[in-house]
């Protein structure tokens, strides 16, 4: 049966319609939420900061738990990353949290390559997701997403400005991950110093073009609180898992001889703000940004490297079949060309070798001839000498023969004489 292939759309564009009653699709968000709760959530935080700056303590404080922590030494030869995964639950929400800490960051004498292991780690997680996405049989909804959703960058509380290592590192990371800078150990800075410090840091970031994560303003329900919080960046935090009694309560705090720094007191530090922004309000947005912005950028670069393009030269959307055929032709031509090239090269080299060999042969031939001549000459000379020698010899032997003869003759003559004498004697 013949059929029309194209779907007709009698209405131009999408028209809004009014409903005559309650249909019930307003439950769609709830259906989605139920599914998410059933599947569980997942979040990955990367903490970058110098050894001892308080990364692990802050994580413990944020998540109200004691992750297994080790004190790192200052003598690591290279920056490494240590990742640990935990399953947490709060009310009916399950969260698979992965905390990645840098080890030995900022300790080496030469810190030029310090950022590289971090970049490599982030790229590896992207690559792993990309591999899964490109598989033939893939299960993306079951995939444990290990991509880094948020990066807390711990700034040393020097009170002056960022360190050069900070700038270099953040510049390398700002297009790969959501960076949230925090001022660590903020209980060493006074309020007025802190204010100046924050302004200096932000202006340094802006003037160097470092793009840190901005809390999103597109949703009216949270735009207001996010705008306020954006103005408090970077958050000055204090972490502590120890409890001190203040008033009649036990609170997380640090006890000094001169007073108690309470972690959750907004007058003392920005910990509550960080927790609010990072976890309560924008966790989902951090994940979404990672997926739709950072990951897509990585993917696009990677695929372009591999040689994929989006549209053919005329910029018309092409069917799979056509693209395949085109690529195939291209490939076959390329193959043919390379084969021809190789063949030509081979022929060329053979010719060259042949020529060389011929030259060598000729040279050898001429040398041979030369030698032969030499040889012939010498031979002739020798023959001459031999002849002379022979002559000498023959003349010598003649002379000797003659001499012998003479001698023999003289002997016989003498003998005869003797005989004669003898003979004559007797008479």
């Amino acid at each position, binding site marked *: *049966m013949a*059929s*029309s*292939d194209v*779907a*007709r*759309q009698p*209405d131009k564009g999408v028209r*809004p*319609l009014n*409903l005559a*009653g*309650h249909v*019930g*699709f*307003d*439950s769609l968000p709830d*259906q*989605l*939420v139920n*599914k*998410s*709760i059933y599947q569980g*959530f997942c*979040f990955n935080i990367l903490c970058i900061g110098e050894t001892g700056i308080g990364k692990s303590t802050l994580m413990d404080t*944020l998540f*109200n*738990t004691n992750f297994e922590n080790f004190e790192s030494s200052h003598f690591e030869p290279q920056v490494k990353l240590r990742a640990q995964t935990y399953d947490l*639950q*709060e*009310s009916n*929400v399950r*969260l698979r949290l992965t905390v990645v800490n840098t080890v030995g960051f900022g300790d080496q004498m030469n810190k030029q390559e310090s950022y590289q292991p971090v970049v490599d780690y982030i790229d590896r997680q992207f690559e792993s997701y990309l591999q899964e996405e*490109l598989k*033939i*049989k893939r299960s993306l*909804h079951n995939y444990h997403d290990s991509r880094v959703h948020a990066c807390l960058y711990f700034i040393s509380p020097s009170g002056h400005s960022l360190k050069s290592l900070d700038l270099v590192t953040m510049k390398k990371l700002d297009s790969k991950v959501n960076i949230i800078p925090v001022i660590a150990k903020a209980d060493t800075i006074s309020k007025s110093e802190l204010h100046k410090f924050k302004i200096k840091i932000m202006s340094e970031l802006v003037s160097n073009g470092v793009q840190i994560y901005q809390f999103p303003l597109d*949703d009216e329900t949270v735009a207001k609180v996010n705008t306020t919080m954006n103005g408090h960046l970077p958050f000055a935090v204090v972490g502590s898992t120890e*409890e001190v009694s203040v008033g009649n309560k*036990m609170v*997380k705090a640090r006890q000094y001889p001169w007073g108690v720094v309470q972690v959750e007191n907004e007058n003392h530090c920005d910990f509550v703000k960080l927790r609010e922004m990072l*976890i*309560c309000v924008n*966790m989902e947005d951090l994940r979404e940004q990672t997926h739709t912005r950072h990951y*897509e950028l990585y993917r*696009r670069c990677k*695929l*372009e490297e*591999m*040689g*994929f*393009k*989006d549209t053919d030269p005329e910029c018309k959307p092409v069917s799979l079949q056509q693209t*395949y055929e085109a690529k195939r032709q291209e*490939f*076959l031509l390329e*193959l043919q060309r390379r084969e021809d090239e190789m063949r030509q090269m081979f022929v060329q*080299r053979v010719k060259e070798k042949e020529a060389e060999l011929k030259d060598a*042969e000729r040279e*050898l031939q001429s040398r041979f001839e030369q030698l032969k001549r030499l040889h012939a000459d010498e031979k002739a000379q020798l023959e001459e000498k031999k002849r002379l020698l022979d002559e000498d010899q023959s003349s010598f032997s003649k002379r000797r023969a003659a001499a012998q003869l003479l001698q023999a003759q003289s002997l016989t003559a003498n003998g005869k004489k003797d005989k004669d004498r003898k003979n004559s004697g007797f008479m």
Partner: protein
Amino acid sequence: HHVRTCYNTRTKKSCLSCSSLLEKQYVGFATLPNQVHRKSVKKGFDFTLMVAGESGMGKSTLVNSLFLTDLYKDRKLLNAEERINQTVEIIKHTVDIEEKGVKLKLTIVDTPGFGDAVNNNECWKPITDYIDQQFEQYFRDESGLNRKNIQDNRVHCCLYFIPPFGHGLRPVDVEFMKALHEKVNIIPLIAKADCLTPNEIKKLKDRIREEIDRFGIKVYQFPECDSDEDEEFKQLDKELKVTFSGRTRVKIKTTARGQRVRGRLYPWGIVEVENQSHCDFVKLRNMLIRSHMHDLKDVTCDVHYENYRAQCIQEMTSKLAQDNRMESPIPILPLSTPDVDTEKLIKMKDEELKRMQEMLNKMQQQMHDKDQ
């Protein structure tokens, strides 16, 4: 680490003001569902529903009743003569509807002409082609470099209307469902069920269920309910595992009790659309829209689409293998093991290269020797 928190599951709000009074246990990620909710409402939803069945089965009326709106203004109905050689068309209607702040872009895919002609061999082909086209379009978009605004036009659900006048499934029904059951979620419906008594309906449902099993047709299975849900709901679920019978007519009538209801007026009484003892319309609406709409989308994405994609890639890679490691037009993982032919060819070429190399070496050696 079970933590107590001030998260109200009914109002779905996290009580932030009292969180500071709450003990040290509070972390705050229990608000994640809330964040997801907020973001999804902002983004809006979309859903594509296909309706298939012969003319006059009440498809348009059902859709209008389900969504309480009139999608089919200015529709032209063909008469019998015009339908002898009727071809199956695919017509899309897309509308934006909103309810309590939740926006839904609803697309209804109509298939007029299905089963209407005298010769209906392969009348489902335009429909399967359409579904495949949407899959292919999505596959291309998903594999492209710029994935900012991908439109999802894949068909999430297909309501198939079975006429109530026979004894069960007819060949065209079986053929259609078998052609589509691995490409789309099929929900079979018994149309115009107000011509059957409850007993007849039960018989027909059982008959159809049995035939569906026998022919190996895979219809959409509603996933098991959570243990939270009512027992009654579970009971309903078992009953409507396979078929619904629906009857609708957008007319608001008053019953004897003076209520205004949607129904069909007959001399012998009013068939109320939303009366559960009259028909399963309410069950259908609840399942399709209120509880499983999202699951229908998920099954389409995770099962039907993935199957299509895997098949597509396998066809492509087998072609690639014949062409000796040609580069793929779509980003997919390279073949890990080339097949036998390719291997042989690779070996041959390798050996040729080796021979050439050896010859060159020999010549070089000869030269070297002669120099000595």
